[in-house]
């Protein structure tokens, strides 16, 4: 009663070599452009989403940091198998605060997807936990 994660791995094909570098470059360009994203208002007007940043921080001095975080998160998504074309659209809908939350911890964030490796004694323990209502794994998902 066990199955390995490897056997169930998503059948998506691997990227050809070189695509990663190309993707990261695209992302870097995109991230740079998106620093001014959504600022359609005229010059000098304080945008609604810039208000708290201007009131609390040093403003433009943070741009490089924000840019780096955005590129890092995008590269992280690519590492987990997202195609370079999709990555750009995905990071565009995240705020700076959300990018910061994902930054460096993207690998530790919970990814809902039912994946679990159940092996030997672990299975037995989980079965006990299930019987006493701690877990809810074994019913059909």
């Amino acid at each position, binding site marked *: 009663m066990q199955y390995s994660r490897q056997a169930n791995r998503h059948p998506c094909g691997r990227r050809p070599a070189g695509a990663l570098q190309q993707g990261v470059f695209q992302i870097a360009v995109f991230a740079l452009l998106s620093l001014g994203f*959504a600022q359609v208002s005229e010059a*000098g007007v304080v945008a609604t989403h810039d208000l708290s940043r201007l009131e609390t921080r040093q403003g433009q001095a943070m741009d490089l940091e924000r840019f780096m975080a955005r590129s890092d998160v995008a590269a992280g998504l690519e*590492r987990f198998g997202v195609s370079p074309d999709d990555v750009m659209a995905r990071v565009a*809908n995240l705020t700076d605060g959300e990018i910061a939350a994902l930054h460096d911890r993207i690998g530790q964030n919970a990814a809902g997807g*039912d994946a679990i490796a159940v092996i030997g004694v672990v299975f037995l323990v989980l079965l006990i936990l299930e019987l006493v209502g701690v877990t809810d794994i074994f019913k059909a998902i």
Partner: protein
Amino acid sequence: MTPGRGPPLILAVLATLQACASYPQAEFGSGAVAQSVPDTPFHAQTRYQCGPAALLTVLEHSGAPSTMAALVEQIYLPDRQGSLQLELVAATRQAARIPYLIDPTLDALAAELAAGRPVLVLQNLGVGWAPRWHYAVVFAVDPDAGLIRLRSGTDPVRETGEGVFLRTWARSGFWGLVVLRPGELPEQPDPGRFLDALVAMEATGHGDVALPSWRVAHEQWPTRTLPLFALGNAALAGGDPASAEASFRKLLALDPQHAAARNNLAHALADQGRSAAAIAELENALSQAELPPALRAELQDSLSEIRNRGAGTR
């Protein structure tokens, strides 16, 4: 492998202790009644893709139809075999809906159902050391029977006992997402969290979706400055400086020290050809003693810009 008598006994004791863990603050309050959103659609998930399936369910119910294929492209992480919470939030914005995280209680969940909105939840069906993260959609609760009903995985109606549901939901920090249409308020809105959700729409280029919600937010919390600030900016960007001026003046009546609003008021005045009044507002704002440096720089930029503009038209 034949385990000795010791470990299973210890495990059983531990298990019993864990089973006793309860979350009184998250349980149904007295007087909670059954709620159901029967028209919640159902989309069966394929392996590991409970995130796209659950998000599709709530988006479709809110009238923002998407497809599994599109959502897989937006939120699935092949090598993690799952989806991240923040990416569900981001994809909601992409679908022109406002993502809002509910209060961490069954009562808040039931209130959303009562308002006709199913709630997307993240559960850990396993335990901390053997996690099985799973997204599902709560579409009904029955406090008397102690039952939670979900669209879950390949199961169109999955009934889970209140206690088990709370334990699996608690492991995600009671993460529960509703997708709001433009102009819709959550049932028990937390003003800070709701306004943050609208600011995030602005920051990701979906200000047009947020605009009706800013209006509703201003009606709901008339003494808050942020909705007025956003409404003024929207009017300014939409080429209606007179209406922008009205919003910024209303805001400044609430908070005369709001330098950013005074900055934008100056632009609204300048756009109406009233440069002298605009410059007076900026000088007023710059005379404030404790201005954050970035904001002071912004005001000075505005001042030179409006002065130049005035010189050009003279």
